[in-house]
């Protein structure tokens, strides 16, 4: 083999080696980007779920006038109102349930808009005081916020 041929072979070998290294890098980068994208969308979904839950806890139409609690009768009225009105921009694809834990067990579905073909669902349970204005009593309750996504 002549010297010039050997040089060409040498250059080709180096180019092949670099191409191989680039390919390996690309595969690694692609896989990690995919994992990060899934993770980022998970974080975004968590943030959205958290935002909806915070909105649901302090939502003025059923919040107590006296402070940090949910008015039972206002919540019942709102649950009827929410069936006819569109609150999608506020609560999106979610289901909000007010569950009374003590003294008695009771459940009010405040808002319901379940995504038909959801793949991810996040449940957030927030303890809340439920005020009953007729007897002026406060019950221990939990606001269950279920948020759906594809």
């Amino acid at each position: 083999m002549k010297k010039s041929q050997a040089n060409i072979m040498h250059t080709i070998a180096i180019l092949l080696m670099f191409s191989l290294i680039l390919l390996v890098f690309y595969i690694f980068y692609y896989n990690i980007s995919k994992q990060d994208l899934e993770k980022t969308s998970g974080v975004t979904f968590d943030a959205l779920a958290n935002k909806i839950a915070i909105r649901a806890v302090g939502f003025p139409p059923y919040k107590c006038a006296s402070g940090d609690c949910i008015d039972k009768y206002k919540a019942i009225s709102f649950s009827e109102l929410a069936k006819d009105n569109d609150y999608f921009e506020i609560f999106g694809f979610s289901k909000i349930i007010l569950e009374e834990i003590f003294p008695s067990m009771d459940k009010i579905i405040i808002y319901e808009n379940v995504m038909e073909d959801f793949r991810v669902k996040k449940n957030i349970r927030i303890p809340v005081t439920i005020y009953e204005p007729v007897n002026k009593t406060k019950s221990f309750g939990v606001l269950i916020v279920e948020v759906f996504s594809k």
Partner: protein
Amino acid sequence: MRKSQADIAGIALAVILAVFAVLFFVKNSGNEDLLVFDDQINSKISSKFILTLLDTTADCNNMNLEEILLFCAEGKNLPCADACQNFEEITQDIFSKTFDRWNKAYYFTVTGDLEIMEFGVECSEGQISSSLSLPSKSGLLSLKLDICS
């Protein structure tokens, strides 16, 4: 091996190491954000749980659990029940309908001059804690809720 070949091999190795270092950094920085976010939610739930519990009206003279606990700490009895027993029963009932039903481990303690009240089991690994102090005539009462990781 010629000098030029050795140089190329050296550069390739350096590039590989640099790329791995960057990938390792990017991967780990993502994990940190996720962990902080979950801790923040649990911490809020933990503190809100204690406040909601104390605000709950018991079935005795329309008193709330905070007032009943203060009666208990001062050694007084309620008109309709033993204050400490009443507080303990209602608290246990609420925990059994919440954390126990959700299969979430917790450890709630009330400490002060009175004997220590304990609910749940101490967390074996990590936990998110929240505590509250209540001044009473017999001293300071400390309420602490750990939500186990």
